[in-house]
């Protein structure tokens, strides 16, 4: 069982044009910086990216938008990105907007082996168009389907050789669910440790879900909106 890869380029070597990718993170928080950079270097095109946001112009998935490698985004919110807007208005980019909770849960359900579920979100809105609607407990619900990906790309704080991952603060966001939903899951970590270095009680994503892991480098961890308390 060898899940260790030397770097991001090695870990994504078999990702091809037209692949469906899940990319972890919320805004620029907890994004797989090394993997995104490697995708830019590899230059593959026609990607479908499932990610809550689309990065900013010069960071995160914005980098893959600059190079026109993304064909379609599946996200809940895609502001903060002028290039995105340009491509969308020009019809160069397809966008599937999904309510954030439905997006997170569709991904989570894929990792739980549940192909479909009911949620009240979006009933009475255009999101419900074409979906099966059913009443439970006096409330209307939509049937939503699990969302899978060819590859899930996530970034964790720590990880071990068996693929166990630990996250810090709000970097769990979509990444823990995506790690479970990928046919192949690739994790980059700030700190790669030996099995045994992570307390089994503190594992956020068990190794069984993670197929490839490597130690990332040069993390920038850019902050989108640094907001400070006014000190009296």
């Amino acid at each position, binding site marked *: 069982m060898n899940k260790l890869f030397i770097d991001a380029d090695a870990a994504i070597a078999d990702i091809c044009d037209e692949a469906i990718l899940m990319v972890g993170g*919320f*805004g*620029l*928080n*907890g994004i797989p910086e090394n993997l995104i950079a490697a995708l830019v270097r590899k230059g593959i095109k026609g990607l479908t990216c499932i990610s*809550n946001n689309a990065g900013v112009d010069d960071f995160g998935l914005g980098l893959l938008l600059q190079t026109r490698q993304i064909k379609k985004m599946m*996200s*809940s*919110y*895609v*502001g*903060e990105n002028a290039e995105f*807007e340009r491509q*969308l*208005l020009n019809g160069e980019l397809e966008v599937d*907007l999904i*309510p*954030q*909770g*439905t997006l*997170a*849960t569709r*991904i*989570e359900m894929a990792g739980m082996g549940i192909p479909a579920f009911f*949620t*009240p*979100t*979006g*009933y*009475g*809105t*255009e*999101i419900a168009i074409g979906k099966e609607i059913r009443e439970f407990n006096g409330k209307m619900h939509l049937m939503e389907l699990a969302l899978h990906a060819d590859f899930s790309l996530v970034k964790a*704080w720590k990880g071990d050789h068996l693929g166990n991952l630990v996250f*810090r*603060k*709000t*970097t*769990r*966001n*979509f*990444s*823990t*669910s995506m790690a479970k939903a990928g046919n192949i899951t690739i994790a980059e970590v700030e700190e790669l440790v030996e099995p045994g270095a992570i307390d089994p009680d503190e594992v*956020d994503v068990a190794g069984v879900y993670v197929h490839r892991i490597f130690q990332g480098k040069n993390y920038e*961890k*850019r*902050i*989108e*909106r*640094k*907001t*400070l*308390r006014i*000190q009296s």
Partner: protein
Amino acid sequence: MSLDKFGIAKRIAQELKDGMYVNLGIGIPTLVANFIPENINVIFQSENGILGMGPYPTEAEVDADLINAGKETVTLIKGAALFDSAESFGMIRAGKIDLTVLGAMEVSEKGDIANWKIPGKMVKGMGGAMDLVASAKNIIVAMMHTNPKGESKLLAQCSLPLTGMACVKKIVTEIAVLEIGEDGFILLERAPGVTVEEIVQKTAGKLIVPDYVPEMQL
């Protein structure tokens, strides 16, 4: 005199009760946290995975791994908990969040809300708003009574694509506090110095005006 955004936030803060779990949207709703009554404790949820969100950090406290749903740096209170988005929206859908405060472009007299899409304009997405309005026990809208063109945002029916149906419970604007009743908007309070006539004139949907409409106590 109509309220400014801080006044709206201050009035909404009066709706908070001890022990409530509250989700505040971006914009005016975020300001509500600055006006929590002294004698109560409320716990703020941020849908990207925080229960127990604290104030913005000092420079020394800034942590790139800790942001709120508005992508702003934040801190945690003692007793906070962190989790992933699936769990966070599970919490919201299961009705564990007592109160959601969010902005709106339009609200109908049935409690429908539109706040995510203007046809013909670039659509950025609904984010977590559709999930929040579909499931929170109590939803308060914080918004201006009219749009920049002076048109009422309280309508018989929303003209914009909906975010949620029949979900808003209360609306606080710069001139009034209203709730959604069986038959339309019910005027509960007016801003200090604002007349009932002004509110009637600026409300396009059906408005029920009780005999006595008190001024807000801020």
